């Protein structure tokens, strides 16, 4: 069955997007990402260290832009200006690659998105030719505004970044999906496989996660679990679940029992 995710005109067979942060080392990063089946992989843009060891390995040697769609993020940016600057550096770094994950954060405690700055940065980046996948809260009005502005995917949080609390307001995510004409990707908050499966069962187009795999006791095994959860959830959504009922309905015929 062909069931592809399309973002900015490019198709992907995996609906799992995965981060590269918080792993023990690059080997674990690479193995987890390979196992997850993800095709879109987020990275952060940071200063090189002065006096860096010349033979210190480089993330992109382990997660090759030839193999994966690299999605640079603006994590750590608390203003529209910083986020836009970060995206421009990423575009130069990745030879003109213009797909970015925009996140403008509000404060250190919650890492909740600052929506006024997010809207401003999204406008500026889109005008500059970027294809913007945008991290936002689970507010359906803001999500629609970001779509109307031209963002190529809207990525509402399930719960706070790195919290592992799952999808705390599935009703809002559904409201966002009802109005959406671009992919809706749950970004942040997924803690374990059932959280990812729930997002997909609800009809989300994809899930972006990092900590749930990187901070599992066995990251590679959790990456495998996430791959299956995303696929199972997606199939369950496409299959269409049975209606919920208040009372029992026997699966075996009640007639014809030997007496």
């Amino acid at each position, binding site marked *: 069955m062909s069931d592809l995710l399309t973002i900015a005109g490019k198709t992907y067979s995996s609906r799992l997007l995965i981060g*590269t942060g918080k792993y023990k080392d690059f080997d674990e990063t690479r193995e987890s990402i390979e196992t997850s089946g993800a095709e879109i992989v987020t990275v*952060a*843009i940071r200063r090189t260290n002065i006096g860096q060891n*010349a033979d210190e390995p*480089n993330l992109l040697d382990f997660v090759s832009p030839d193999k994966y769609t*690299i999605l640079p*993020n603006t994590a750590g940016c608390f203003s529209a200006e910083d986020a836009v600057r970060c995206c421009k550096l990423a575009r130069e*770094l*990745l030879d003109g690659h213009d797909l970015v994950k925009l996140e403008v954060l509000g404060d250190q405690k919650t890492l909740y998105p600052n929506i006024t700055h997010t809207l401003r940065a999204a406008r500026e980046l889109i005008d500059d030719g970027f294809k913007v996948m945008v991290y936002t809260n689970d507010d359906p009005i803001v999500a629609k505004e970001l779509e109307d502005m031209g963002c190529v995917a809207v990525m509402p949080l399930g719960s706070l970044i790195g919290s592992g609390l799952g999808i705390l307001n599935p009703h809002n995510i559904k409201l966002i999906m009802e109005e959406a004409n671009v992919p809706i990707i749950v970004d942040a908050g997924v803690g374990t496989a059932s959280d990812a499966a729930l997002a997909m069962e609800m009809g989300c187009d994809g899930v972006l996660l990092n900590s749930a795999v990187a901070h599992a006791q066995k990251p590679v095994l959790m990456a495998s679990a996430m791959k299956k959860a995303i696929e199972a959830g997606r199939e369950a959504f496409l299959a269409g679940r049975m209606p919920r009922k208040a009372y029992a309905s026997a699966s075996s015929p009640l007639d014809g029992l030997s007496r």
Partner: protein
Amino acid sequence: MKLTVNGDTLSLDGNTIADLVTQMELAGRRLAVEVNREIIPKSQHADFALNEDDVVEIVHAIGGG
């Protein structure tokens, strides 16, 4: 010449971005460079002349979510 590179003072023996990158033992790596907050494309690194007190940022990709 004296530069500020990624927030620290650095003395450069040479005058181009390429010289700086080599001195920092970052040659051949995937980088982006800003001079005085303006991005200088890779294609210009060999020729772009730095000046005393320039503020340079050199970034690369690291793990992130």
